[in-house]
């Protein structure tokens, strides 16, 4: 039998992809304008929350979610409460802003250390917007614990050991590891639940803790803009140039026309 586990789930606020066409570049500052675009929990982080809740249901313990972002990030933490997590923490401070993956990982790790006594750190394998998949391994490095990415299945075995299935190209690896460990999960791991209506109401009773950089034990040189080795000197709009030529007629006629054009374009195989 396994002991109850303390699980921390890192979740990221991302602009809702249904509104990505509203994102625009400020032509002068080259900064992405995202005002008025609703935020949601990055989809794979919902799989991470779901997995944490299932583990808690199976063997007891506690689920804490942590996020970093501007104050309105509490919206997604309220959603996490509605799903049934026990606690929620928001790292919010100007000092955290402008972070790349390394500085984000440093900040999250400092928050996780303050939560303390953690057995398992879960998060989505990659975020919807940046989709770098870098924060999981880097949080683990800052915490000094092992990690596995691409996790599509978690099995607990005896003595605080677990076996996870990690997705690789055209297959998987089964990896055994101890606790504590960071696991970055994929969408295959489960089907996330949606909050019950009552949950949504009840969630308003609970408020996320908000921590500033002063509240956590972290070297300021490792967070925010200062702690970010990378920066973005330039962002350019991509113009997708497609001909949009409409083909009409009888099927056989369309097929002949199309094949002729594809051959002229040099993309028709063996022709």
């Amino acid at each position: 039998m396994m002991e109850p586990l303390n699980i921390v789930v890192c979740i990221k606020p991302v602009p809702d992809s249904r509104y990505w066409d509203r994102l625009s570049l400020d032509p002068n500052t080259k900064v992405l304008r995202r005002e008025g675009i609703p935020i949601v929990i990055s989809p794979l982080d919902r799989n991470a929350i779901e997995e944490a809740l299932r583990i808690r249901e199976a063997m007891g313990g506690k689920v804490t979610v942590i996020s970093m972002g501007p104050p309105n990030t509490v919206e997604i933490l309220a959603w996490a409460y509605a799903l049934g997590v026990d606690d929620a923490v928001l790292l919010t401070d100007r000092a955290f802003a402008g972070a790349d993956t390394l500085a984000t990982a440093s900040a999250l790790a400092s928050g996780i250390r303050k939560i303390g006594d953690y057995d398992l750190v879960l998060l989505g394998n990659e975020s919807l917007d940046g989709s770098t998949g870098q924060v999981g391994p880097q949080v683990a490095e800052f915490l000094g614990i092992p990690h596995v990415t691409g996790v599509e299945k978690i099995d607990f075995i005896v003595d605080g050991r677990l076996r996870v299935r990690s997705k690789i190209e055209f297959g998987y690896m089964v990896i055994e590891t101890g606790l504590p460990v960071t696991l970055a999960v994929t969408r295959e791991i489960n089907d996330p639940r949606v909050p019950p209506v009552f949950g949504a109401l009840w969630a308003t009773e609970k408020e996320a803790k908000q921590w500033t950089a002063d509240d956590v034990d972290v070297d300021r040189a490792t967070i925010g803009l200062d702690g970010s080795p990378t920066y973005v000197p330039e962002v350019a709009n991509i113009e997708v140039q497609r001909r949009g030529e409409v083909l009409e007629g009888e099927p056989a006629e369309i097929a002949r026309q199309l094949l002729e054009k594809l051959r002229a374009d040099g993309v028709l195989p063996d022709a």
Partner: protein
Amino acid sequence: MDTYEGVLVFAEQRDGKLLDVGLELLGAGRQIADKLGQELAAVLLGHNVGALADELTIYGADKVYLADAPVLEVYRSDAYSLVLEELINKYKPAIFLVGGTSIGMDLAPTVAAKVNTGLSAHCVGLDVDEDGCLRSQVPAFGGSVMASIACPNHRPQMATVPPGFLKKPEKTEKKAVIENIKVNITEENVRTKVIEVFSEEPTAKPLDQAETIIAGGYGIGSKENWKMLEELARELGGSVGATRPACDEGWAVQEEQMIGQSGKTVHPNLYIGAGISGVIHHLIGIQDSRVIVAINRDADAPIMKAADYAIVADYKDIIPALIEEYKKLKS
């Protein structure tokens, strides 16, 4: 920082076979190294992989670092990242490039954190600026914008590049020098154990390498109809791709056939999409195709505007006609 020089490429091997992505990186790495007037090196980790090191020497590198030890037989984050950390601290490359495979995407951020440097992911282009600093081109926000990422004050400057984006270089006459690296870590340093590795070679070419892709969406309607796409793909020597809903319905057998989720992109010469409306994820995934053909009964479907050739018709009429006309053309 000035003591960091040269370009290092991670040459990934699996099961005693070099992956193409490592060679592709050597091609790009050679260009960058030449621009900088510096050295290009590859690093190979594994067990009993000496023959692969020999194979690596003819792809343009000046040097191949070989770390060969039982502890490195199968990829594990701890083992590989510790060896690379030591290598980087000793040889101090200015740039370190890693292929964006499942393993590369696990390894690169781990190494970057260990040596405290910047890493850009999913780079589709690499260059150096006037100061000799790496500039990585990364599509962002669903490919609506292209970000240029720099890492001015930390070394090495790291980037991952997805497989298939860069051209594999020609073999060279000049051979690289192989330098054996002493592996100082043992099983004690590795906190994970690999119990099993399973992988099944796909029957068709992986989508990211396919030159022709026939993709289907929810509009295909049934597993029976899906066969029509497979037949056209067979005829054209291409692979079948699918949207998320078509995978969820089980029409596409392999998860790997899904285009446009999790940054998975394809770049065939020819993409033909049938019964696909074109949600943003899918359109992002196919935007690097040379020619896009969309077949949809709805002239207003988003994919029709993102296509070179838009066919407003039922795919059930068009695809059989295409198969027939293509056969005629070939005979």
